[in-house]
């Protein structure tokens, strides 16, 4: 009797242990413990973050370690991402408006669009955008005739839609690419806006790509570059 009871409880305990082991493996328990022992907190944060993309926390951690900030530099990100200044922010330090951390930045950006519902839509508008400088259209093949186009640039905010500008031009025969210059100031528009380009007449078998050229607000010539990695900068105002 004792043996049967012992075997039954051994079997139950074994199943319970196995069950817990499965949970431990499923939640990467051993891997996580190893990670905590091997890497210190900021290293773990750096490993699970992008370096110079989206929130660019890797770059911020690199700067914090290298420059040991005596004040809180300003931080601006040119992508729609959470602000990463929490990594270095200290209430007991003053904000230094002369020092700027600028993430994912290019002064002029060439942005891709997606063709949705007969329009070319720019999904993510850079937060620092100042102007739409132009539109680049490329065709799939050279035509042996002129191709006149009417182009509308629209602003979309969920269900609201506004036409911002209309341009008429013509693709000359045997031309593959055309750049239409604009100088459309959108600096005062909502950051949640999307922009779209509608083309008429629309021949999707003919149009290869539509790109929007934007100019962003910050001029790097106004700053001294203290550090730079890819498109992330640590700047000091001149």
């Amino acid at each position: 009797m004792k043996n049967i009871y012992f075997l039954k409880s051994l079997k139950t305990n074994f199943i319970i242990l196995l069950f817990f082991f499965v949970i431990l493996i499923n939640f990467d328990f051993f891997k996580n413990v190893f990670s905590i022992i091997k890497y210190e907190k900021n290293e773990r944060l750096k490993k699970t973050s992008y370096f110079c993309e989206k929130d660019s926390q890797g770059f911020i951690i690199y700067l914090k370690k290298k420059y040991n900030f005596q004040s809180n530099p300003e931080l601006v990100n040119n992508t729609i991402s959470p602000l990463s200044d929490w990594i270095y922010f200290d209430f007991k330090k003053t904000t230094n408006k002369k020092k700027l951390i600028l993430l994912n930045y290019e002064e002029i950006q060439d942005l891709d669009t997606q063709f949705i519902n007969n329009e070319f839509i720019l999904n993510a508008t850079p937060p620092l955008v100042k102007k739409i400088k132009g539109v680049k259209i490329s065709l799939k093949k050279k035509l042996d005739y002129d191709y006149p186009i009417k182009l509308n640039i629209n602003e979309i905010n969920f269900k609201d839609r506004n036409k911002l500008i209309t341009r008429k031009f013509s693709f000359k025969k045997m031309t593959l690419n055309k750049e239409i210059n604009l100088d459309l100031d959108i600096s005062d528009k909502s950051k949640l806006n999307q922009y779209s380009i509608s083309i008429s007449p629309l021949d999707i078998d003919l149009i290869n790509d539509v790109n929007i050229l934007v100019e962003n607000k910050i001029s790097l010539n106004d700053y001294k570059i203290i550090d730079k990695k890819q498109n992330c900068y640590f700047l000091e105002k001149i």
Partner: protein
Amino acid sequence: MLFLRKNMIEIINIFIFPLVLIIFLQNNLLSRFLNNNYGKKILFLDQKILNLFILLNLILIISLLNLKIEITIYLVVVYFLLTNFLFFSFKKNFFFIYNFLFLLIIFYIFSVQIAAYPDLSWDGKFHWYKRALNFFQDMGFENLSSLPKYEYPHFGSYIWALFWSTSPLKLEYFGRLFYLFLYLLSIYSICDLVINQKIKNLSFIFFSLIAFNLNHFTGNQDIVVFSFIIFLTRYFYLIYIDKDDKILNYLLFILINNIIIWIKYECFVYVFLSYIILITSKFLNKKFDKVYFLTLFLFITILFKISISKIYQISLDASFQFSGEYNFKELFYLENIIYKFFFIIKYYLFSLFKNPILLLGFFSLAIILFKRISLLTPMFIFFILLNLSTFSIFYIIQSDFEWHVVYGIDRYILQYSGVSILFIIILLNNLFRNK
């Protein structure tokens, strides 16, 4: 070598942290008082939860006095010593820890995941971390006005800062580990309502695993509200089923509501709904002493919140709901009603399928109603009204309405989804009652 030692200290701290919390839950003075007056009718678990909420309410009051966070820690330690020094027992402590063994095991599994991935959510970085940092660095209540959304309640970030300060290595995520502890303790408390002893622990493991998501512990306060709503659900339910009608259940109901209202702005809705339903049901049952008692405490809870807001000049306007140029007439346009209703329903259903607890809860509720299993009407009404509040909370938003629904509805639903665990437990109790 020093580097290795520091990281080993971190792992050891994670191991010790919940043990210390469990020990701090004991209040021998209170236990003796309750045992002398109520005998064995007061459960061991209820004594611990009562002490937790007495402590949280004390910490809330201290947090409003603009004292250094170190002083809060000293006061908590003094409270612990005063309530335990006469009757301290190592054997009792071992017994407490043993009782929470499953909770501890699950805590360790989740806590190392939080520690290994210490990143914060969007709102965690933008709002809540800096509020916690404000208290951690003893900058005072008024300094919160330098941060966006000054009107956001402070208590969640205060307890984040408190446990951040208690960590020997001053690691911020220890504050979030306290959120994890609350989460597990709340699920443990509601699973305690399972009658069948064999499936009690199993149900705790099941619910804590399926409801867990690392993103909930990345700084947002919604998981804190989720935990407190589960505690509230337990005592709300006990008030109805307890034949002795113990004052302890009412006391916990009041203490929990007094904390919830200081976590997130929309918690006004939960506090108001829970009190109104309870007061109405007591009124209908002609228990007028309870009606007066509860009405008084509802009044005190709200008055306390309003007074503190006035002292610290915190706006009571819901900034998301009433931002921009607000047009009250638009609320009654039929076109708006139809558009917004269907938009909210669509995203409500998306969120429902992303929340397994709520989905199981609705499924259990359907079976309970179909099989005509006894279900307390007030709890049912509470749950339905919470779901309906989703529509009203988002309907009244005018500025960036769609954006708020798309990005906010998941988190709002998470807050009250814990109530649905009660229906799953009622169903389990019915299925396993004779086994």
